[in-house]
């Protein structure tokens, strides 16, 4: 009699344990379905150097340009179904843009503490070119001149788990900043700052499109 009682209790215990395990796995499975890769936009840095030889004479303050690029990229990537976007706040972006420190830490097998656990992929953006192309032609008062802003951005995606670069792309844009024709009539357009912002926005939009296409 006691033997049967033990067998019956054993069955009950085993069934209860299996039920509990099933519940845990089912819940885990549901949350796993919800888990998506996390992508963090670390920020944009500039590789444009103002030296005697580069001759870049654009007046737009650089930090504002970089902010335009980051915000446009963030806006384009936000809401994407394939990943969750983690965006660092604007005020702290500058501190986190220190790629050299980040790369050095990864080289030693570490993730810098402020980035640890934030994402599966880190996106680094760069302003690689910001210049003006000037063209002119004509003679004897029949002449034309224009200035075109040329902006180029690039983007690198780093796998946070391995430290390897897994995707690199670049995009550029050209926008007319000034037009001046001297013939029967004259026309003058001046909009350098607007042209820079538009060129940067276009380039960032194209970067985002290439990022999504590569997934």
């Amino acid at each position, binding site marked *: 009699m006691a033997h049967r009682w033990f067998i019956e209790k054993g069955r009950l215990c085993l069934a209860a344990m299996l039920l509990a395990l099933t519940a845990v*796995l089912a819940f885990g499975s549901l949350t796993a379905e919800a888990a998506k890769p996390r992508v963090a936009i670390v920020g944009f840095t500039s590789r444009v150097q103002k030296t005697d030889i580069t001759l870049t004479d654009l007046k737009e303050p650089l930090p504002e340009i970089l902010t335009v690029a980051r915000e446009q990229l963030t806006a384009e990537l936000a809401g994407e179904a394939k990943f969750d976007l983690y965006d660092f706040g604007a005020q702290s972006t500058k501190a986190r843009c220190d790629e050299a420190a980040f790369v050095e830490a990864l080289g030693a097998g570490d993730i810098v503490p402020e980035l640890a656990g934030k994402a599966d992929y880190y996106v680094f953006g760069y302003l690689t070119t910001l210049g003006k192309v000037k063209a002119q032609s004509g003679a004897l008062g029949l002449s034309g001149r224009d200035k075109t802003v040329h902006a180029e951005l690039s983007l690198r995606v780093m796998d946070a788990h391995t430290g390897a670069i897994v995707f690199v792309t670049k995009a550029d844009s050209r926008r007319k900043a000034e037009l001046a024709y001297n013939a029967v009539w004259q026309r003058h357009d001046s909009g350098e700052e607007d042209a820079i912002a538009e060129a940067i926005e276009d380039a960032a939009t194209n970067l985002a499109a290439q990022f999504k296409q590569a997934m």
Partner: protein
Amino acid sequence: MQISWKNVFLLAALLFALPLTGTPAQAAGLFGGTPAGDSVFVGEVQSYGDYELKADACATFVDKLAEALRQQGIAVSGRADLTNEEGRHDAIGSGDEAAELSEIHMDAIVHGHQFDRGYTAAKLAHYADLAMGRAYFHQEERLAAWKKSTQVYRLSPDKQRTAAAIAAKYGADYMLFVNLKDFDVRLKHSIFATHTERETKGKKLSASLDYYLVNARTGRVYEKHIENKKTAQMVNFGLGKTGKGMDVDTLLGEVMETSAKDIADDVKKHGLDEVKGNGTSLVH
């Protein structure tokens, strides 16, 4: 309550079937679905010429190169330090991965057809003497014949082993190294050119580089020399005016873009096929 062994086994079967029907978490792997085509690991993009290009320019070049390769259907990967700036400045034999990549690059250069010991960075000249011996660079007839050749060659055996180990770690079959050996900006001096504060008198920029595609498994190396030139000049002659002007960064960007596309085209058309072969290759 009566629970039969049959019901317990049914419950167990349900339990074990669950992981098969559920979707596992895919926290990573967003870029795992790379094209089915070839994949290249960028080992180093640096300047081993007489004059070093700025680190920022090397970084921009590698971004352009990666994009150009992607346009050719070739997937690109690399270490976090994509240009290997750290390894370029490490001492020979320091032993870490960055230094090893620099040494593989230098090994490919000194065994290559384009190498000229008289026009190189000090580190490369030092490595060449270590790897080949000074006497090698005095065999002028042999070197002249080698320069005319375009044959695929191999890395030194120890560098071949190192390349295979690093490539295996990153899951790559091929490694790419670029030596941006000579980027030269010359300001033109023409009496007709504009004399604005920024535009000066026109500019001319030439780029000379070599790239090395390595089959990490066999150590076979394909080498190619690429050269490009661009000019920008605004000219005023009397009442007439013509031409275009741009700053050096923009001009440099255009030259780098063209050079990167040339590399990607050549990798696709020739490089990969050359290093895939198993034919006899020289150990030079």
